[in-house]
């Protein structure tokens, strides 16, 4: 069967329709020449060889890790921050399906996709960081260190990836046109959501619990028996902020996919998410305060690291809390978006603080990331963005599939 595009008759091809956005290979290649792609290409040009180098010559050659500092940028940013920022998946899913806030449905699929890709690329980051990455399935299939918090993390990431994939399946199946399978997958949505929330809340807190085993290495202002709670609550904040940022960027970049009139919806959604973020930030601030009181290390607030702690708390927790509140009250969507970006930076900063800056704070041999570590981190993030874009351009994430309109 042939279809007519701009007057020319082209033979129908699954590859062209599904993968090349309905364009001929030449047209598709021309379409790829954008500034963003050029920058991404340059990043990959540097980063992909760096990844090869890391596998060819080992961690010692590619990183600044040492016997004193076994965890570096890849753990601090790729793994810890990546998991936190991917929390939008379960946060939005609970909002829509469990709390019944249907007005957030338009951003749900993108949030679930961000969550899925976030965790997926966390695993990619892990594969680069592990000493023997081909053994990554071991905690699931071979050896069970059940006393380890990291064992919990491994299992949860594995199960959660599966759950997120399942939650995203309806979109993939709509893209492929497999109707009956899609029906079956949709039925599992509620179960998948509940399961996903259960998994998420535990492993977000478990990532914090990892550091419970380092009381002498983590600075007392950050070390607390409540780290798991802090990581969990801040993951909710991270999820909300990431959805605000991601949806703002998507609406601008993928604007042709958004149905007319939906742009106004996004403003309402953004304000709603901003309000939630404000409340959670407020709560988080007080939780941190209680933690400091519990530790009793008020005197440490006067030290340089203490000041840094106050900066993290003041500029990246309290400030966004009030900026969100103000923006929501005054219906200033741009302010809410900017605050969300600030919050995202704050979450990354917190994870980097716990794993790199406040960790081994009293040791002379401090860790500084090497060029290749930075390059590979940026590369992984870029790959994540490119994958996100590839999927959004093809599958009904930001828009409804014509045949499934209203069937949600």
């Amino acid at each position, binding site marked *: 069967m042939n279809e007519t595009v*701009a007057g020319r008759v082209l033979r129908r091809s699954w590859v062209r329709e599904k993968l090349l956005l309905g364009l001929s290979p030449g047209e598709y290649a021309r379409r790829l020449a954008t500034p963003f792609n050029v920058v991404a290409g340059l990043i990959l040009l540097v980063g992909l060889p760096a990844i090869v180098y890391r596998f060819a010559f080992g961690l010692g050659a590619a990183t600044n890790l040492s016997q004193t500092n076994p965890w570096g940028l890849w753990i601090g940013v790729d793994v810890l921050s990546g998991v936190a920022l991917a929390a939008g998946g379960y946060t939005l899913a609970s909002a829509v399906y469990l709390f019944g806030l249907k007005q957030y449905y338009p951003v749900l699929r993108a949030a679930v996709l961000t969550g899925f890709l976030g965790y997926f690329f966390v695993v990619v980051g892990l594969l680069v960081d592990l000493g023997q990455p081909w053994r990554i399935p071991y905690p699931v299939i071979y050896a069970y260190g059940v006393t380890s918090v990291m064992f919990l993390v491994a299992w949860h990431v594995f199960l959660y990836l599966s759950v997120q994939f399942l939650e995203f399946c309806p979109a993939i199946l709509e893209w492929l046109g497999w109707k009956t399978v899609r029906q079956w997958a949709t039925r599992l949505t509620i179960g998948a959501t509940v399961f996903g929330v259960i998994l998420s809340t535990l492993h977000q807190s478990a990532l914090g619990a990892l550091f419970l085993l380092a009381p002498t290495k983590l600075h007392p202002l950050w070390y607390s028996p409540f780290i798991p709670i802090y990581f969990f609550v801040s993951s909710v904040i991270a999820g909300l902020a990431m959805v605000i940022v991601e949806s703002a960027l998507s609406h601008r970049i993928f604007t042709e996919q*958004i149905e*007319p009139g939906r742009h*106004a919806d996004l403003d309402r959604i953004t304000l709603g998410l901003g309000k939630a973020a404000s409340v959670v930030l407020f709560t988080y601030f*007080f939780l941190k305060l209680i933690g400091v*009181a*519990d530790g009793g290390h008020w005197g440490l607030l006067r030290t340089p690291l203490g000041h840094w702690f106050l900066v993290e708390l003041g500029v990246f927790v309290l400030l966004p809390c009030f900026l969100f509140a103000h923006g929501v009250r005054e219906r200033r969507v741009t302010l809410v978006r900017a605050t969300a970006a600030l919050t995202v930076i704050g979450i990354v900063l917190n994870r980097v603080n716990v794993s790199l800056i406040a960790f081994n704070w009293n040791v002379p041999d401090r860790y500084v990331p090497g060029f290749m570590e930075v390059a590979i981190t940026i590369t992984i993030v870029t790959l994540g963005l490119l994958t996100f874009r590839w999927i959004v351009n093809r599958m009904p994430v930001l828009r409804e599939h014509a045949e499934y309109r209203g069937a949600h």
Partner: protein
Amino acid sequence: MSHHDIFSMYSTKGLEYLIAVVFLLVFIPFWRFVNGAGAAEPAVAWEAPRWVGQLADWFRVPAHVYFHPGHAWATVGDGDLVTVGMDDFARKLVGPVSSIALREVGARVAQGEKAWTLVSDGKSVDMLSPVDGTVVAVNEEVARSPERLGGDPYGEGWLMRVRAPRLAPNMKQLLSGALARRFIEDACDRLQALTTPDLGRVYQDGGLPVDGMARALRPGDWDRMVRAFFLT
């Protein structure tokens, strides 16, 4: 890990409880602050008797005209040259327009983004563009004398000519033929549902005064209603 003696343990715990209590006290005013003075958009009443006669028959829905859900229309000329304007329903909804602010020649418009602004009775209402592209011509006459809009909204009342390079994907979002008629009928249903029983003068001849329906239904607040239809 420090060991607390009895006294410092109580003082520590006391401090933590104090912080928790302070939190509870501060939380309520904070909650109210966040929810602020912002009112939710006024709910539109959904109750109404049906009108005598089909309101939709009042509005023209020509063939070969493509309608955007924001009540703008587009017709295709040579190649990718598109003429756009506002549809009959929109024209009659707003009523007499005192001025129209169109984009200049050379400006870029995007489907679903603001294309032109109507000003009437001191209030301004935007309309969305039905296609992406670059403006190559504007209707100077209508811009100068907006009353020319009334007679022939799909012909002489055209507003802009746009060169639309991405016509095919744009068209996927537009409605024509039977779908367009259905769209206008739905708009009329919504309009009818907005009336309340005590709008007495409107019933007399079984139909609404066609010019300026929004103003008849919501005298002080008509722009809000119009914006709801125009998706702006």
